[in-house]
């Protein structure tokens, strides 16, 4: 387990953000990267800058009329009435300057990461700016304008006929955009573990959403109860993903590593800690070596406690991608720099202390409900995977 790992990044990727008080703040990427550097995890590694996705790349999963509107939006050339048809210019997805250029670079980053791994130049690759899993064919949704994972998967399928790709999404929100893009496709397994749509955007992602036509059995969903904590989250993950991946037999695993299931996240009701953000990448890494010669691409995703959670979660992710030990203490210079800006006290350890996250009062009921979901998943969906 010691092949070459690549961190795909360019400062241009940090232009993807909606400004002001918007929760999707690109500062989180800056802090994560500086934390990787401060922890010494970039020694011997450099950042590989991607090229922007072309219109052709984007058109694998988006309509041309949508792309044209995004292009015009970022140069103030389209009326709001036109943009609102595509859900651009809303509170979630406001217009920002040169938004097409910024979004196309994110897509280019994930495509580049996938090509490096599939082409054998890297064993694993990470692009933390990627993971915009809600974007739909002709619609921005949930802070996502272009669907980078969707376009990268579509491109891989063109460049490697017959390839089988497993998309594994552990963001707290259902990975709906990617799921719908490949809902008919038996060569793309989409797996999403998320807070149940009864409680959280986008509302979809029930166990019964299992694919359509030839793709039946290739869309997998594990919806979790609100306030799910580490032990139950990890149990659900272990009871579903490894078996599904073994049955599917991927050639490459693309993981979306949103970290908004953390207890401190302001947008969701899940209650995990950094333990989950070490466990998930570690296991995906092992499964990639077991099943597909280590070919693993990781992208970021949601995560809205940008001070205390995102930098630590994604530094832990890079540590796993690059086969390095995660140091225990946060670097003093990093804490000094960001502590001045942060509205909340920053933790001085890279890992959460379990005692600070005691079991909630209803932990037993939450665990029980999640076990029912796993049982339903095993009964109704897993057997469909040959």
């Amino acid at each position, binding site marked *: 387990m010691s092949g070459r790992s690549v961190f795909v990044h360019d400062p241009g990727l940090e232009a993807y953000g909606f400004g002001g008080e918007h929760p999707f703040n690109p500062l989180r990427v800056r802090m994560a990267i500086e934390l990787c550097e401060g922890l010494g995890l970039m020694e011997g590694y450099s950042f590989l800058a991607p090229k922007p996705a072309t219109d052709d790349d984007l058109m694998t999963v988006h309509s041309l009329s949508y792309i044209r509107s995004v292009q015009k939006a970022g140069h103030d050339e389209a009326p709001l009435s036109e943009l609102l048809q595509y859900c651009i210019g809303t509170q979630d997805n406001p217009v920002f300057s040169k938004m097409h250029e910024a979004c196309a670079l994110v897509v280019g980053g994930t495509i580049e990461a996938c090509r490096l791994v599939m082409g054998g130049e890297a064993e694993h690759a990470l692009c933390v700016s990627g993971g915009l899993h809600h974007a739909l064919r002709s619609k921005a949704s949930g802070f996502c304008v272009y669907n980078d994972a969707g376009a990268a998967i579509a491109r891989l399928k063109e460049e490697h006929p017959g390839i089988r790709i497993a998309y594994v999404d552990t963001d707290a929100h259902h990975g709906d955009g990617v799921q719908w893009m490949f809902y008919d496709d038996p060569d793309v397994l989409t797996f999403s573990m998320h807070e149940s749509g009864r409680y*959280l955007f986008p509302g979809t992602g029930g166990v019964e959403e299992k694919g359509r036509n030839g793709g039946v059995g290739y869309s997998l969903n594990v919806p979790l109860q609100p*306030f799910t904590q580490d032990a139950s989250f990890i149990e659900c993950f272990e009871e579903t993903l490894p078996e599904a991946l073994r049955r599917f037999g991927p050639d490459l695993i693309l993981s979306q590593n949103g970290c908004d299931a953390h207890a401190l996240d*302001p947008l969701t009701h899940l209650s995990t800690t950094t333990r989950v953000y070490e466990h998930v990448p570690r296991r995906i890494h092992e499964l990639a070596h077991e099943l597909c010669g280590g070919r693993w691409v990781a992208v970021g995703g949601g995560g809205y406690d940008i001070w205390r959670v995102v930098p630590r979660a994604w530094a832990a992710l890079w540590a796993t991608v690059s086969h390095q030990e995660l140091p225990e203490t946060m670097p003093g210079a990093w804490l000094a720099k960001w502590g001045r800006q942060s509205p909340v006290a920053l933790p001085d350890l890279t890992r959460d202390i379990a005692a600070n996250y005691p079991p909630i009062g209803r932990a037993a009921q939450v665990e029980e409900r999640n076990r029912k979901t796993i049982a339903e998943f095993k009964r109704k969906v897993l057997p469909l995977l040959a």
Partner: protein
Amino acid sequence: MLLVRDSMVREVLTVSPETTAAEALTLCREKRIRHLPVLEGGRMVGLISDRDLRASTPALGDANRAAALDKIRVGDEMAREISTADPDDPIEQAAMAMHERKIGCLPVVEGEDLVGILTTSDVMAALVRLVGAHEPGSRLEIAFPDRPGSLADVAGIVRDQGVNIVSVLSAPGEYDGGSGSVAVIRLATINPTGVVRSLEGAGFPVLWPPSTPGGPGQGL
């Protein structure tokens, strides 16, 4: 629109009173349907369901089953008093009729002609469209007093937050012992926190989603 004509199935499979039970059951199985209107001379004279047919024939495994299935005619077993719907009935009226009479389907009749059929699964599909469940959104349940203007106040708060409403349903008498209504609102946003804060600040309890374990909406 949400009329029966917008949700009904227009291509209706029918049988005649002379059709055998075996033929009718085969049709049900192959087309995966449960109800067949019965036509005679172009006019609807009855309705037969796969359940009626099964109830009237010997059980699976019974040696007499095959012979009985060939002998029994649809005309012998069909229901003759049938509830029907008009294509211009509101979908909720059709749903109420099906619910109250405990029936699974309504043939849709315009004048003398059978023009469609509405089953529980068509009503379910209409419900899905009605609540906007196929569109990405965050689901909130909000309690408000049952008096003029209060839903407008709720909508105004959502508007002031710049959020689009995907769908809204409101059920009277569901809150606080019947004195208040509950609205189920689907918002086109991943981040309803601003709306929730403003609603609660204005005195509209947000019942769903629960904000803490054992907090509002503790029923989860």
